[in-house]
């Protein structure tokens, strides 16, 4: 019950915050279309840019409940924001979940090997993973293109279906996006280090000692106890990946919400930007809610506290 209340309270708060930011905006979307002051005025009125922030917030929330996030002003003039955001966010969600999976599986997997040991692998992961997403994406895309092209010129391979990045959508492009997102901007190293620490903590705890003394296999216990902290980690990461998503979609030309948000911000298409912010905030809150539920399920002590 309590997590659900906080889910909605947070979401409404986030929308209010975004509206508050817009309240003081010095320029508006009409700037991008109108050269003629008369046309500008008419547009301002039609688009409701002259309403007070409170009015706007209430209207937005009222419509959002009915699934209507408003109308795009400049990105796709006249198109419904819901219609634009929905298919795009499904594409983006795939990337997001993929990246989450990649970094969790790799991070935790390696942590099982390296936790509590001196390992060059930890350092290597750190060195590779701190590279910003935009550099990693651009560099790997360029290398991939040039190598494949030179192989094609040498007639070693025929033209691959995905060639050339970042042009058309392909399985390879999705994989590349997921990998870069899951590794770059310190994503992998942070998950790796955090799970190492958790593993160490669990390994040092008394019940593991007891299990070991009885000669039982400790791995299932480790896994089960790792699940709680991992969910927290994953649900916190989700918000971080949403940011990286914008970059990766922009660089690799993926038509998802991230790239759309970028364009909306550039073209001052605030209804669209607001709609995407709403979806992003909802996703973050949902990830937290899911994290809470999993944690409570895994750890009976938390249930007792409630």
């Amino acid at each position, binding site marked *: 019950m309590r997590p659900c209340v906080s889910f909605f309270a947070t979401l409404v708060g986030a929308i209010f915050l975004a509206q508050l930011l817009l309240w003081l905006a010095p320029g508006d*979307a009409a*700037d*991008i*279309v109108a050269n003629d002051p008369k046309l500008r005025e008419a547009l301002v009125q039609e688009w409701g840019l002259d309403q007070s922030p409170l009015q706007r917030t209430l209207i937005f929330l009222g419509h959002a409940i009915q699934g209507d996030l408003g109308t795009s002003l400049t990105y796709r003039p006249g198109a419904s924001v819901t219609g634009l955001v929905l298919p795009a966010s499904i594409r983006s969600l795939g990337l997001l979940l993929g990246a989450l999976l990649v970094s969790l599986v790799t991070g935790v997997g390696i942590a099982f090997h390296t936790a509590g040991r001196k390992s060059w692998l930890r350092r290597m992961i750190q060195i590779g993973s701190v590279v910003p997403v935009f550099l990693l994406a651009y560099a*790997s895309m360029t290398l*991939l293109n040039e190598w494949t092209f030179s192989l094609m010129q040498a007639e070693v391979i*025929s033209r691959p279906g*995905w060639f050339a990045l970042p*042009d*058309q959508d392909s399985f390879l492009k999705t994989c590349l996006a997921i990998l870069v997102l899951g590794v770059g901007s310190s994503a992998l190293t942070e998950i790796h280090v955090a799970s190492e620490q958790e593993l160490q903590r669990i390994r040092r705890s008394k019940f593991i000692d007891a299990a070991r003394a009885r000669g039982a296999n400790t791995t299932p216990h480790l896994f089960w106890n790792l699940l709680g902290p991992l969910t927290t980690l994953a649900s916190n990461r989700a918000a971080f990946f949403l940011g990286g998503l914008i970059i990766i979609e922009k660089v690799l030309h993926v038509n998802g919400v991230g790239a759309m948000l970028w364009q909306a911000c550039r073209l001052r298409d605030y209804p669209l930007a607001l709609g995407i912010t709403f979806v992003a905030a909802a996703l973050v809150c949902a990830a937290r809610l899911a994290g809470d539920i999993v944690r409570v399920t895994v750890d009976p002590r938390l249930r007792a506290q409630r």
Partner: protein
Amino acid sequence: MNNKTLHLFALGIALSLAGPASGTALRYAEDQAPGIINPLFTTSMSEARVNELLFDGLFTDDRDLASTPALVDNWELAEDKLSMTLSLKPDLYWQDGTPLSTKDVVFTIEAMKNPKTLSSEAGRVEWIKSAEALSSQQLRLTFNQPEFQPQDKLFFKIVPSHAFDSTTVRRGDDFRTKPVGTGPYQFISYNPDNSITYRRNTDYRDSVGIPELVMREVNDKNYQAKLMLFESMEALIRVLPRDLAVLQNNRLVELYPYQTNSWWYTGFNLTRAPFNEPKVRAALAHMVDVEALLAPVGTGAVLSGPFVKSSPYYNHDVAPVSADPFLAGGYLEEAGFEQGPDGWQRDGEVLTLQLSAPKAVEDAQEIVLNLQAQLQQNGVSVTVEFLDEAEWKARIWRNRDFDMLLSQWSFDRNEDVRDQFHSKGARNFGSYTNEKVDDLLDRARNSSDPYEKKMLLREAHRVIHEDHPMIFLWTLDSYAALNTKISQVAIHPFYFFTYVSSWRMK
């Protein structure tokens, strides 16, 4: 990281079995996909190009850029030049099968004129007083004042009246997702990857060569030329100068030069001191080495006035301003400036200016930074700012808040510079006023004699040149790049796709 790339590479080879992409479509790149497909609301070039594919005007341009009938069969201008009668070509159909009638033409004009439509194109029909259908094939247009060449202004696109409820057209109307036109291509779909597919219109009034066109959004300009080389793209609308060499040497790519009616300039704000003084403007103009500015951004022709070199109105007796620091210093001294430790100054005030440029325009960075360096060397300190589209429109168009700006003007074949240089011109951002120029431009606009008009505008060129309201820079040589598979290519300098029906693809 190396390990990971190798991994991906192996994956790539595995995927290479998927085979090559289909080869029947012509794919062309746009920086930004069109936001809306509706000729009444066009605000960007990519939208204008789509309109060219899907829609037709009453008239269009022939290969020599003279007007030629498109939907119109024949027409007659009244004696008093205040009205004209047009009849449409018979047996023309909209892409949904409805026959085209004069009702559609009347509807288009009325929709554009309807203030509730908020059409960004309303200016194109301002001069038409009314449109009236005489029959389904014949209509009459009445003008506000005598028009000598009305067909030159009748190239706006016609939309189908049956697709709309009333002449109050909205941006959100369904038309945006299923546009219907009479043009050589038919809209098929907005694809999930932001591309748009068009198929040829088999009912078009002419035969159309290439079966399918695909617009692809490639907003990274660094990648456009690359994708041509990789054969992921068949057409590039404008090649960046720095990519010219590498495309020129590739046997898969053919470059097509085209002459655009557009020129670059740096304009002064004549309402601000000291740029209201002709001497100061002349001095600044003589400090700039235009050839050196042009070198890093491409090749082109340096201009002395507001017309392109190939224009009949260009006055070849007027030479471009030469770079002459000595002369520039002379002008400044005449204006009361003297050389101080911080550069030129007058009454203790140092000569400084802010140079504004649009962020989105390619090559603007190189030009601006170079110009800044040149002026600095001559003792004028310059700060630079790059504005995004919205800031540009607000600051420059609306508030006229700038010292000096870098930009370019593009014109249709009328090359009407009245908006730019007439004291009442809507695009006269610098607030340039010269009664003589006003008079020359007014007379030129109302003149029915082509020779007289030419002479008037050449004189205007000379007068404007002497006033230095702006530093005239150049027209750039533009090149389109097309894959050699495409033949019989002709390119319209502004709308690009005007002659697309004649293109053929192997």
